[in-house]
């Protein structure tokens, strides 16, 4: 008779939501985060930096004052969106690496608002619409390839990323370039900018757009029939088929939704980033947002709420890194290092299994002692 049939055990189990590895998912992310910070500290120590000083500086820089918190939130804003891009597709059973490219395309589309004028507010909305549509369209390519020809979406999205990368370079340097300031595109006029949330920082109302998108995605995935079907097909396509669910349709939908989110992220970086409100050559504003978003998604366990927290954490890391560089002299790139370790740590279910075995042994040992 298996343990599951004993009623008291059921209650105990319900207290802790368990993942594949048997650990609470939030706990897993926490462990991974700590592992990242720990290894970062070791690397710093090897190079003769002071880890305590560095992390203290990072923390205070990220959350110590209003400016810090605002910076962290500003950094978090696009990450929320690109993380959702990745997560929506994970829920649908796919690996969409294409957020990078979809962000570029969204940013480019949003930057086009500089070429015509509309009353304030409307101008912003139109720009957002451009970006969202562009992102969605750019994701259509890999989606259709996957659904019709079974093309591996990892490879196709990487290719699309690079294509849009160079396309972006071209457009920024040649077509959309500002005649006067040739190092960037035409600025987004004030009528189309996100109003700033906190004066003197780069935190804008784009944050609310991002949070709103997260909320919308949550409702779609967990509270609508369509979202239910997407998740079912992602977890068990055969059973879903029996349930009358067309997994091709759900995959297409997931891709497009994700692309829209990434497009929005691109827009937020163009229409919400003082002082230039434009895309500079080299596209520095939007580069890496896709990849960072993936890390955020993994730490956030591919759930909108988790993603909000994870984005805040990663945003804090990035914002605090500046302070860390100034006060402890540790280079900015330490953040990427820590991110990388966290992601690798999350890739290892077996490692957590080791923890679970230890946990079980401890419990059994304690039970025996108390018996």
């Amino acid at each position, binding site marked *: 008779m298996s343990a599951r049939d004993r009623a008291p055990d059921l209650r105990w189990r319900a207290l802790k939501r368990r993942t594949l590895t048997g650990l609470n998912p939030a706990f897993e992310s926490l462990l991974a985060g700590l592992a990242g910070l720990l290894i970062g500290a070791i690397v710093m120590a090897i190079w003769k930096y002071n880890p305590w000083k560095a992390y203290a500086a990072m923390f205070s820089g990220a959350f110590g004052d209003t400016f810090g918190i605002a910076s962290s939130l500003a950094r978090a804003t696009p990450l929320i969106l690109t993380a959702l891009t990745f997560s929506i597709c994970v829920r649908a059973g796919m690996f969409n690496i294409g957020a990078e490219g979809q962000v570029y395309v969204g940013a480019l589309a949003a930057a086009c608002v500089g070429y015509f004028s509309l009353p304030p507010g409307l101008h912003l909305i139109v720009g957002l619409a451009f970006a969202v549509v562009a992102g969605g369209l750019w994701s259509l390519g890999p989606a259709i390839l996957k659904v019709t020809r079974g093309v591996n979406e990892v490879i196709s999205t990487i290719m699309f990323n690079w294509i849009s990368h160079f396309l972006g370079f071209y457009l920024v340097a040649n077509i959309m370039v500002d005649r006067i300031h040739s190092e960037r595109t035409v600025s987004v006029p004030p009528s189309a900018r996100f109003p700033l949330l906190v004066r003197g920082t780069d935190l804008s109302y784009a944050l609310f757009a991002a949070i709103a998108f997260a909320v919308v995605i949550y409702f779609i995935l967990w509270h609508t029939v369509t979202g239910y079907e997407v998740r079912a097909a992602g977890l068990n396509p055969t059973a*879903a088929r029996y349930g*009358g669910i067309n997994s091709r349709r759900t995959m297409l939908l997931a891709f497009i939704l994700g692309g829209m989110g990434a497009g929005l992220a691109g827009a937020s970086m163009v229409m919400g980033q003082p002082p230039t409100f434009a895309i500079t050559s080299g596209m520095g504003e939007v580069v890496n947002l896709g990849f960072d978003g993936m890390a955020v998604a993994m730490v956030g366990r591919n759930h909108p709420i988790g993603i909000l927290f994870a984005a805040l954490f990663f945003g804090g890391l990035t914002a605090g890194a500046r302070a860390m560089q100034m006060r402890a002299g540790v280079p900015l790139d330490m953040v990427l290092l820590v991110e990388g370790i966290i992601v690798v740590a999350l890739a290892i279910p077996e490692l957590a299994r080791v923890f679970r075995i230890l946990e079980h042994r401890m419990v059994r040992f304690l039970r025996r002692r108390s018996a």
Partner: protein
Amino acid sequence: MTGITQTANALPPEDYYLRAERVTKIYSDGTVALKSVDLEVRPREILGLLGENGAGKTTLTKILSGLLPPTKGRVISPRGPVKFASPREALQFGIGMVHQHFALVGTFNALENVALSHSRPFARLQLANTRKRVEELMQESGLDVPLDVPVEKLAVGEQQRVEILKVLSRDVDLLILDEPTSVLTPLEVDELFSLLRGLRDKGKAIILITHKLKEVGSVTDRIVILRRGESVGDVKTAQVTPGQLARLMVGETVEPVGRKAIELTEEELPRHEASRHMQHSEGAGILHVQALTVRADTREAAVKDLSFDVHGGEIFGIAGVEGNGQSELVEALTGLRKATQGVATINGTNVIGKDPREIYRLGVAHVPEDRWRLGLVLPFTLAENAILGVQRWEEFRGPLSFLRWRKINQHVRELMDRFGIQATGPSAPAKSLSGGNQQKLIVGRELAKDPAIVIASQPTRGLDIGAAQYIRNLLLEMRDNGRAILLVSADLDEVLALSDRIAIMYEGRFMAVAKPGDFDREKIGLLMGGVTAKEEA
């Protein structure tokens, strides 16, 4: 790699090659697969291992060939106890197994597949030499197989021969074949059997796993019968009749299942409002199947020209060992597979080629045979699983396609109440439930569709007695309420106890259709093993 060698001539025929002593196997989920089984394997002998599904045949041979360790008991050879940690060690000892599902690399040709099992990594791949030796081997053994075609393009019979070739090329002393004839044409079966006889005469020991009485009679020297994990007979083939074998294989009835259903009124069953309007015609033909032919994945016909009807208020049970076309039949009726010929209608409307969802709308409920793969989305909660298939029905779907979770949860609680599903609540993940509770969830979900017909495939597999009884009573109850039930089960007792009419399925056809009382167990066993009335004599 040498050719087929003679095993030690000095061994007198009574001496054994391998002996399993009191072997017991209990899986990690508690299933008892083998109970203290003794088995002796002798050289120069073809031993038949006979039994139904779940009798333990495959488990026993897996233990013999090193794929699984026994929980208790041991395996010994004349040289002492043997314990294999991997198939490779068993191969080196001299035991080779030809699996039911071939272990071949599809894109390799036959030559490469054989070469693969002689792996000494950095040697140059001397395919020319390998070819010569393989050709020698084919000559000696009488096997014939095209060597340069990718194996996945070969006919199934040829693929099997490549498997056998692979094993032979390792110079094995014991050859185990698991249900080898289930994928062969009669001609190929004859060729296989003469091959086996030739090998036996050269001194090999051979174990043939099967459920087919005719075959076991024609090629084996000795037969061991397993039933529910125990060895119930060890006889010389020449000294036993098919009837006796059949009786040993299916045994006597175990626990009787009450035929009286639990008293229950219609209103107590939680059901979707939409479905109350469905009409149920008592006693009328609900499912009509005519000349149905369905192809399996291997492109052979799994269901051959089948015709039958199921009426409201009856349980039509299909008995038979798995792998005789039952799965393909159910898939064709529930929308997962297209039939190549024939007709199947529910209340007059065709179901062939339709989407599962459309078929549900016609009043079909399906309890699938593989609840994890087909019936549930395990990471989903109870509530999410409870609406699988009916997520678009109006009572669960609000404006803007929003799901009415309150209604859904209420419905789930009703299901939990009514069917006694043990769980912490509607938001418990389905994988935290025991097998019995999972099955109850599926059955409850299906019955809540208020179907005209329920297709139940292996509905009590893997469940403990209590849960199994419960499900069986539910089926009886549905029958008493006028539904039609198509029951497919490899558990003969279950089929006999529940059905009003039974059919025995063998190799895609019905051997017989009758009332349970019409046959005695021996007769049924014979039919399940493929022996028709005239061949009995």
